């Protein structure tokens, strides 16, 4: 994998601190995300990865620290605003709209980006995006279950739908929290395909939390390793694999 070709940071995270009571989930995390790269985020369970994503994306307010998007301070802004600023995401646990059918899940994920609240009352239900939704459904191989409500899909299918929803509004930067978790091999291949396609053809930047090392080492240009709420190191897959500190963090002292 070639390292990303630019050195222009699109996202600058500085000294993020977040505590839940006496538990220090993030103790001053700083890193940059560069335009067009795929950044892998790894670390043992409970090291603060998901908390970090939630702090960056507005689901949580960090106790201190700043997040800059394209040089602008966006720390603590509400999720809808960040979504409209071009940040897409998925969550660690599945988050689809259970009662809605597959196409409606996708349309719901894009409607706030193509119409204001008032004007969306007067738009056609499919927002004139029927063809686009169909293409996305086919590319995620969900065609055979497209008539079903999301709750009726299998776990893997819901996972694919969840990721498709994160991509739907054409985000500039996508945060994925364990996209490979609980997904079978052929589905995993299709997830990988979609990520690489968006990254290479449309220059979409990714930050991906993952426990599946094979998967993340293969697609990530750069890896950020967290341990105990702090940055342990950043480097290429090879550098991370060889580093004794990483092995120690995973296996314990």
């Amino acid at each position, binding site marked *: 994998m070639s390292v990303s070709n630019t050195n222009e940071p699109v996202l600058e995270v500085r000294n993020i601190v977040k505590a839940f009571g006496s538990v220090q989930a993030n103790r001053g995390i700083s890193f940059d995300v560069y335009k067009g790269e795929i950044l892998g985020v790894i670390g043992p369970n409970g090291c603060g990865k998901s908390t970090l994503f939630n702090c960056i*994306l507005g689901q949580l307010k960090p106790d201190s620290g700043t997040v800059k998007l394209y040089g602008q301070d966006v720390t603590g802004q509400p*999720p*809808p605003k960040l979504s409209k600023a071009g940040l897409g995401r998925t969550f660690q646990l599945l*988050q689809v*709209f*259970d009662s809605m059918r597959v196409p409606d899940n996708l349309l719901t*994920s894009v409607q*706030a980006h193509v119409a204001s609240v008032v004007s969306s009352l007067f738009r056609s239900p499919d927002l004139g995006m029927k063809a686009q939704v169909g293409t996305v459904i086919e590319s995620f191989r969900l065609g055979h279950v497209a008539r079903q409500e999301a709750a009726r899909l299998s776990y893997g299918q819901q996972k694919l739908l969840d990721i498709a929803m994160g991509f739907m509004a054409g985000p500039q930067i996508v945060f994925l929290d364990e996209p490979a978790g609980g997904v079978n091999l052929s589905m995993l291949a299709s997830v990988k395909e979609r990520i690489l396609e968006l990254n290479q053809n449309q220059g979409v930047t990714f930050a991906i939390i993952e426990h599946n090392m094979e998967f993340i080492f293969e697609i990530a240009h750069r890896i950020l390793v967290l341990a105990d709420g702090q940055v342990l190191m950043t480097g290429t897959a090879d550098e991370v694999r060889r580093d004794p500190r990483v092995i120690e963090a995973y296996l314990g002292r």
Partner: protein
Amino acid sequence: MIRETKLDQEIQATRIVEDANEKIWQRIKFGAIVLMVAALIIAPQFAGNYLIYVLSLWAIITISAQGLNLTMGFAGKVSLAQGAFMGIGAYTSVLLVKNGWANYWIAMLIAAVFCMMIGALIGFPALRVKGHYLAFVTLAFNELVILVLRNEEQWTGGPLGILNIERPSMFGYSLFQPVRFYYFCLLMLGIVTLAVWYMIHSPWGRAFKALRDNPNRAESVGLSTTTYTLLAFAIGSGLAGIAGAMLAPLVEFIDPSSFDLNKSLEFLLMVMVGGRGTMAGPFIGAFFAKVLPELLRFANEYYLIVFAVFVMVVILFFPTGIVGIGSYLKDRFFSGKEKESG
């Protein structure tokens, strides 16, 4: 490659069957709606004044239940204040007309807008609390409204309420006669139903459902949960306001107890039993709560026992209400579609 083609063919075949079944189901639904509308229109030919009165009440209650269904059924925000909002609508419109400040139609409009504004205010707590806590906040609001209605005697007539409320005229026709007032109620019910139907099938409907299904996800895809929560409360309360403004001239009398917590609980029950989050739910719920007891009057208090057992069975086995029974039967016997678990 060959396997994939075969799979594609199977998918194609299932789709054709699904399409056909869906079409037949749509026709059955459409037929049922046409029959119901026809029955309601010709009802005065066969029904006496009392039944016409009950059906008028049903139409009004259904309008308000549709409001709660929007707030609770579609947007997932529980409210125990629908009775209070009907009361606010009723008192507002009656006071405006009695004091000669507005004619009935303007008064109804003002009542609806006023209820929407207060509804939006009540929506603010819903941004912070949900479930039981929200139920208690709205319950407290209902009690507050009743207290105001009881105590501000110079305006509201206190516990005795306001008597001799006149029925309005429409396009020069007095709606004094029960049958005319009934057709007015049907017309309003039709207008409200079409408006709600349109809204639920617009992107707004999806936003409301997203709010109910998964507010966290809704926010992360850019939907303002604040805006849609307040909208759901405002519109739901506005419909209660319209219903209140219609109830007053139907009964020709209003008092605080007509809008107390019991009424709010009744609305909750109607939406739950009818089928929350469905278009038909409020119609069915209001029918079970208002019309059926009158039709089964000969059974006396036994009706209440049967009704209570029925409600428990529905809630226990069909959490989506009577409409849920319908879709269960449809899945089971009609389309042959089974729940996919794999």
